[in-house]
């Protein structure tokens, strides 16, 4: 049995794991990344789902990763380039019309009444101001309340100053809306159901919420805050999200990190007091001064570490973490470019099929009772419209994020899969007549598939529900929100840590900072 020794071993080569490894390696640490799958990237991968057709298996747009992180890791030098940035959003409703939202320009939007057209930039302006004030909340390592460390006080002070600088009127507005549901907020500003549907969709995307669920303004602000720090609007990397992971891999390797794929970790090892390495499924042991897990909290704590190493109350909190996914991913191989009703020419943006907040709420109703939506709501992109290399010449791929698809489908996904696929195609056909006839292959990734293929317990994109009670000093749980596990020497860096999922990379960056801080 070979025994190697590293400063840090990173369990899981998802984007956060790679970001963490890159930062640690750049700081001169010896780092080993262990990825179970044959390729790095976790859910941020570009995969062939039908012969010749490739698509981003998880998220299909890169709009939340801060430009500072991309710059610090020099990702463009490591091969990351954008096939499209500042992509527009088309909100479609068959028989109603189209609204085109230029989120980046925050103005030129067509298909709106004069009142809505005027209200939209105002709304974006105000929300972005509030979101920007919240960015320090998202950006840093959450403080440990009551611990009395100067660094924690500094974090709180920075946040306080940012909020105070908003001024009385805007701070009051932030406090008023932060816990609200997005439906009510949008009612205050807009008339067009289609516009409200598209905006509400962003607030509930990837969550277990409908637009009438409290806390959905918070999720919208979260998205806007991250988008603000990313600064390139909706963007699509050339080569899909897998290209991001390849760039991160290259950046980490160039900095000296060692990366091993197809190397599943079986156990995080604890030597008396501290995490001291990992045992691989092959039986091999790797020693390390610290272990950083990019896996979700449930997998990390209950499967890799084991409840035996943890206090019972902590384990209870981990098991109560809301980790059930509600979002499915749908891919279709197309013989020709689809034509969406209401979009002239090639759809070089994302298409949101969520006719109104009520329609989303109704779609959500089913999910509450273990059924998938009878009328699902979708975010659709045709990646080949900006990046032809993803499909054979002249052919196209379609990628859609579909809600709502509960992890624990009552009838089971064995029988539900075909029916749900059919429902999605039916919905697409309604908005893009002829699309169905052009489909040569499809792939549906339910939360159960996401769990199995990407080793995310519960199949939730954010590893754990993004909600006020699972955020900041409470993410994943109180007492372990500083990327530190209760077991010294073990850290978490995945989407289940602050600030959360959505291909931000901040979990990885902050975890690396925490590791470096403590080793000092």
């Amino acid at each position, binding site marked *: 049995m070979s025994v190697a020794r590293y400063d840090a071993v990173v369990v899981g080569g998802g984007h956060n794991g790679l970001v963490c490894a890159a930062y640690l390696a750049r700081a001169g640490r010896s780092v080993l990344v262990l990825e179970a799958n044959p390729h790095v990237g976790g859910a941020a991968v570009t995969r062939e789902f039908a012969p010749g057709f490739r698509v981003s298996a998880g998220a299909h747009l890169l709009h939340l990763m801060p430009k500072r992180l991309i710059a610090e890791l020099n990702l463009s030098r490591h091969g990351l380039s954008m096939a499209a940035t500042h992509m527009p959003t088309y909100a479609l409703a068959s028989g109603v019309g189209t609204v085109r939202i230029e989120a980046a320009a925050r103005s030129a939007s067509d298909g709106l009444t004069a009142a809505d057209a005027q209200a939209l930039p105002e709304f974006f302006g105000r929300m972005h101001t509030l979101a920007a004030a919240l960015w320090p909340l998202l950006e840093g390592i959450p403080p440990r309340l009551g611990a009395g460390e100067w660094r924690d006080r500094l974090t709180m002070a920075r946040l306080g100053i940012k909020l105070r600088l908003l001024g009385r009127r805007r701070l009051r507005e932030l406090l008023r809306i932060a816990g609200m549901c997005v439906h009510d907020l949008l009612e205050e500003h807009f008339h067009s159901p289609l516009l409200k549907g598209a905006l509400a969709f962003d607030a509930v995307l990837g969550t277990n919420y409908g637009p009438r669920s409290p806390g959905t303004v918070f999720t919208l602000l979260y998205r806007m805050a991250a988008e603000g720090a990313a600064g390139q609007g909706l963007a699509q990397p050339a080569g899909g999200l897998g290209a991001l992971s390849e760039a991160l891999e290259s950046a980490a390797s160039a900095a000296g990190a060692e990366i091993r794929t197809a190397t599943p970790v079986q156990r995080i090892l604890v030597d008396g007091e501290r995490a001291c390495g990992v045992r691989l499924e092959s039986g091999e042991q790797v020693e390390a001064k610290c272990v950083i897990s990019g896996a979700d909290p449930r997998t990390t704590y209950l499967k890799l570490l084991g*409840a035996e190493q943890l206090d019972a109350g902590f*384990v209870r909190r981990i*098991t109560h973490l809301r980790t059930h996914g509600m979002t499915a991913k749908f891919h279709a191989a197309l013989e020709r470019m689809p034509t969406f009703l209401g979009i002239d020419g090639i759809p070089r943006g994302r298409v949101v099929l969520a006719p109104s907040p009520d329609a989303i709420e109704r779609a959500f109703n089913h999910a509450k009772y273990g059924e998938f939506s009878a009328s699902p709501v979708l975010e659709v992109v045709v990646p080949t419209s900006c990046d032809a290399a993803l499909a054979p010449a002249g052919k196209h791929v379609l990628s859609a994020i579909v809600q709502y698809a509960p992890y624990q489908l009552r009838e089971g996904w064995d029988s539900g899969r075909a029916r749900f696929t059919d429902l999605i195609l039916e919905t697409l056909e309604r908005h893009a007549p002829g699309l169905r006839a052009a489909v040569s292959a499809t792939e549906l990734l339910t939360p159960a598939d996401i769990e199995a293929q990407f080793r995310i317990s519960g199949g939730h994109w954010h590893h754990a529900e993004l909600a006020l009670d699972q955020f900041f000093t409470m993410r994943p749980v109180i007492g372990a929100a500083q990327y530190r596990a209760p077991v010294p020497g073990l850290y978490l860096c995945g989407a289940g840590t602050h600030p959360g999922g959505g291909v931000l990379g901040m979990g990885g960056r902050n975890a690396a900072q925490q590791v470096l801080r403590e080793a000092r």
Partner: protein
Amino acid sequence: MLTEREPYYRQPLLRTPFHARMREFSQVDCFIPWSGYSTVDVFTTMEQEYFAIRNAASLYDLTPMVKYRIAGPDATRYLDRLMTRHIAKLPVGRVAYGIWCDDSGKLIDDGTVFRFGESEYRLCTAEHQLDWLLDSRIGFDVRIEEVTAEVAALALQGPCSCWVLRTLGLNGIETLAPFESRAFTLGAMTLLVSRTGFTGDLGYELWVEPQHAESLWDRLMEAGRTRTIRPIGSRALNIARLEAGFLQPNVDFVSSGRTLRNGTARSPLELALGWLVDFRKGHFTGRRALLQESQAQPLRRLAGLDVAGNKPAQNALLYADRHGRREIGSVTSAAWSPTCKRNIALAMLAAPYFETGREVWAEIYLNRELVWERRMVRARVVERPFFAPQRRRRTPAADF
């Protein structure tokens, strides 16, 4: 179910299988609730019952003691993660007194663990704990079920207790060592006997199926007749346990699961139960917090007090000086000890006043026919237990 239950609003408390017998002996009709059951506080007078414990033989209905069966492949690992003692080292057929803590290292409760087999245990506690036991089960292959109603239990305590059991026909009972348990056959019943108790005296606890409860009671009362065996209530037991230096939950500490105020939960180190915490055995709930605490200067600790005079220092505030200028703690339990002829107490004291030999002052209020008097009484920190007769440990156990 032990007895037919009326609607809960008519009979909110359960009755133990000894209830009918106890009612016959009860002269003052003084029943109190204990974890859902009705039990006896006093049968005749507290003093009479107390002296049965120390000078003869006493019977105490232990049935309300909450009992859990813990079994399964991971039972030992489970208990070692739950409790602070090293359970894997407990031999089959032995009993251990132990405690368990929450994540912050604060005491939840104490109890006794019986090891019946390689991975078969019984945990006995004064209060219901199923919630915490089930939470602690996550990640362990172990079954936990409450068996309180399936086991009737009596504590037979006092110098003559061994003699009574031998007279009853339990051959070899005198060889049973402290914290050992053994099964005996007595007519149609199988009787589990453990040399355990809450009195700090020679004594046994008897565990039997409920249908044999009355028969066991009758036979014990008959066997012990010439030794003036007597049923006792909780009040007399409380004096005995205080002499033995044992803690009473919700009197000397409040379970951390029940505290609402910050800083009122107590750690085993504060309760002077550090000897029950094994830091070398591997992880257990609360270990990290306790390790940290053990490396810092202690803030407070439970200690025994010998108080001047003969007025129990019940609930007394304690001071560093006789003028009561500096408050340093308070009394949790206090009584006049008839056997020691000392006025004893347990008290939570701030550092450094818990150290043996320290002099402190107790503020005692006396009710003189509704005229209240306040006394500042000198007290000294002393070692516990206050009373520890040799017969308690001697094996083979002696006759009296």
